[in-house]
Each structure stands twice: as structure tokens, then as C-alpha cells.
């Protein structure tokens, strides 16, 4: 392993003009350029989502009706879980900026504590997203496509390894949420359920119970791409954290590496703010 750089180089040797353009180091400038290009990628994804949604002629799923569960609880808590995830990411962004601030004071202990807190926050966010994906994929009661090719929504979820007959007051709902909504109960519902063509529950890449297939695809792609960014952000944070523990940056005389990984981490938070608005709220 090459030894860590400790000697400061003459700036005029680094920059042709004798000084750094914009008065920032090469690494920081390149991090900003990378973030701009990454921001364009995410913008492209979100605009594509808006395009698909705007062009679609049927009803589009509503965020608070799809995401209303909390782990370990029954009942409806619209958007609370996503708001909690947003809060976790904002807090981990704050601990990161506190680490950068401590770095500017060359306070090694402060940088260590706040970076550790940031990494923990990143892991909590990743765990939350794993739960959210699992919930989205497994779904709730779902709907069936009957042998008459009509869509019947289930009133209640059929328990694992159970059948429709096991559910007390099992009902099928035709034209749910519309003016001509009608409910079918009792033996007739069980008979219709058993004669179904398909039971659509949860989500995969070809069909989902929430709405058009594009909805599921955009959910997986946008939150997945963001989650991958969070994952790499946590990895980079851990690498820099090890550097802080080994005293690499103290020897170097500045904690700019913390600032650069901080830029990436804040960017991940920034993207989530937009995903939260355009995917969940609107």
C-alpha cells in the first residue's frame, strides 16, 4: 500500500495558472462536477416518471394510499414511514456537516464522533428502505382477475397458506372507488375467488396491485438507484472514517477528504428530498 500523502505541494506546481481556479482544490471541483452529472441522471429519471404519469390515461396510484404502513403496526399511517425516512436522512446530513465543521477546527475527536453517527444514520436509512421494498413487493390484499376478466378487489388479506373460505366475511369488490361500486360476499365470493385467472398481490416488474406496471417499475428504479447511492455513500464514509481513525488527515493537516465525502452524502439527501416530493407526495 502506498504511503499516505502528508507533504503539502506548491500550488503553482499543481495549477498551470499558478493558482487554483475558483479557489477550490482539484478534488473538490471534480466532486462538484460529478454531482452535477449525477443530478442530471436523477432529474432524467424523475422527469421520465412525470412524463409517464402525465401521458397515462387511467388513474395513477396516490402516494398516501400506497404507503400507509408502519413496521409492526396495523392500521393506516399515511406517509408517516416515508417522512420518518426523510427525517433520518436529514439528521444524518446534519451529523455529516457537523463532522465537516469539526474538521475545519482540526478536532479529530469531533470528526470521529460525527462521522460514526453519519454512518449509523446511513445504515438505518438503508434498513428502512429494505423494509419499504419488502412491504411494497409483498403488498396487502390485492385483487383478482376473475374468469370473466373483470377486476375484483379483495376486502381482506388471505392469510399465508390459507384459502378464501378461511376468511370470515370475505368479500370481493367490483369497480372499487367508483360510483357503481358493488360488493359480493359469502359463498359467491369464495366461488369467484377459486375460479380466478390470477391473484395480483404486491408488485413485480410486470404487474402490481397499486396501478399501472410503470408505477412499480419507476418505484424500483428510482428508489433503487437512490438506495444504491446511499449504499456507496456509506461505503465511502466508512473508508474516510478509517482514515480519520488512523490519523491520516491529521498528518495531512486538513480534513478536506471529510468535506468531499460530505458533499456526496448531502447530495444523496438532496436527491431524496426530490424523490419524496415527486414520487410520494404529488
Amino acid at each position: 500500500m502506498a504511503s499516505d500523502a502528508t507533504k503539502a505541494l506548491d500550488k503553482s506546481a499543481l495549477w498551470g495558472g499558478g493558482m487554483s481556479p475558483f479557489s477550490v482544490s482539484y478534488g473538490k471541483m471534480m466532486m462538484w462536477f460529478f454531482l452535477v452529472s449525477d443530478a442530471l441522471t436523477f432529474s432524467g429519471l424523475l422527469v421520465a416518471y412525470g412524463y409517464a404519469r402525465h401521458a397515462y390515461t387511467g388513474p395513477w396510484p396516490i402516494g398516501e394510499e400506497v404507503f400507509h404502513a408502519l413496521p409492526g403496526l396495523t392500521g393506516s399511517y399515511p406517509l408517516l414511514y416515508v417522512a420518518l425516512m426523510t427525517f433520518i436522512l436529514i439528521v444524518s446530513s446534519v451529523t455529516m456537516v457537523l463532522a465537516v465543521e469539526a474538521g475545519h477546527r482540526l478536532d479529530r475527536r469531533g470528526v470521529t464522533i460525527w462521522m460514526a453517527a453519519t454512518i449509523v444514520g446511513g445504515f438505518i436509512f438503508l434498513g428502512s428502505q429494505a423494509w419499504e421494498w419488502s412491504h411494497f413487493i409483498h403488498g396487502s390484499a390485492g385483487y383478482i382477475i376473475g374468469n370473466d376478466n373483470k377486476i375484483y378487489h379483495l376486502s381482506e388479506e388471505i392469510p399465508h397458506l390459507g384459502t378464501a373460505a378461511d376468511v370470515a366475511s370475505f368479500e370481493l369488490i367490483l369497480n372499487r372507488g367508483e360510483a357503481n361500486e358493488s360488493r359480493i360476499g359469502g359463498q359467491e365470493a369464495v366461488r369467484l375467488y377459486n375460479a380466478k385467472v390470477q391473484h395480483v398481490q404486491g408488485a413485480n416488474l410486470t404487474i402490481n396491485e397499486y396501478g399501472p406496471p410503470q408505477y412499480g417499475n419507476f418505484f424500483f428504479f428510482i428508489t433503487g438507484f437512490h438506495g444504491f447511492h446511499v449504499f456507496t455513500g456509506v461505503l465511502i464514509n466508512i473508508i474516510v472514517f478509517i482514515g480519520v481513525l488512523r490519523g491520516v488527515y491529521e498528518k495531512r493537516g486538513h480534513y478536506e477528504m471529510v468535506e468531499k465525502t460530505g458533499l456526496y452524502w448531502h447530495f444523496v439527501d438532496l436527491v431524496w428530498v426530490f424523490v419524496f416530493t415527486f414520487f410520494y407526495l404529488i
Partner: protein
Amino acid sequence: MERDDLIVNDSYSLNAYHDAEHGKEIRKKIVRVTILLTLITAVEVALGVYIKQGTTLWPFVKVGFIILTLVKAAYIVAVFMHLGDERKSLRYVIIVPYAIFIIYLLVISILESNYINEVWLQFKP
């Protein structure tokens, strides 16, 4: 107007250093921004839960969401990412090309999706 690209001094970012006193001030600012971001998120969730899609208020709420999100983003970029403390030239190099491209992308995709939507409605089986 002062040309900040001609100033020859040691305000190189590697030398960004402040004392404990100044650090306290910066931390105060960070706490203020944190509270603000949390409040905005809470307001957004409350609006999303209590005002249903399809009501007369909804279009205004939608615009409100976008404005609140831009405010949040501006605070994150300016304070957390320290872009507000960078030189003006760097700020513009980052924001202006991005903004131009995004406005172009938004305009063209809204126009195009409107058109596609009309076509699909017209030729729906």
C-alpha cells in the same frame, strides 16, 4: 464590481480553518437549518395527508410542495454543501448549466406528454 477570480491570496479551500468561537456560530446556523428542514417536511406530510387529490385546493398544494422542496434544496446546497460560501464563479458554473438543461427538459417533456396523452385518449379502444 470586484473580480473575485483575480484575488491572489491564500483562500485556498484546503486552508479553510476556523477557531472554536467561529465554530460555535456555524453550529448554531446548522441547528437553525435542521429545525427549518424538519418543519418543512412536517408541513408537507400534513398537507399531503389532509388535503386529498382531486379537491379544489389540490393544485395549489401541488405548487406549494414544489416551492417547499426548492426551498429545502436551496438550504441543503447553500448551507450543508457550503456552496453559499464558495466563490461566485464556482456557484454559477455549477448552477447555471444545470438549471438551463432542467428547464429545457421539463418544458419539452410536459409538452410532449400532453400531446401523447391526447393521442391515447383519442384512439383509446
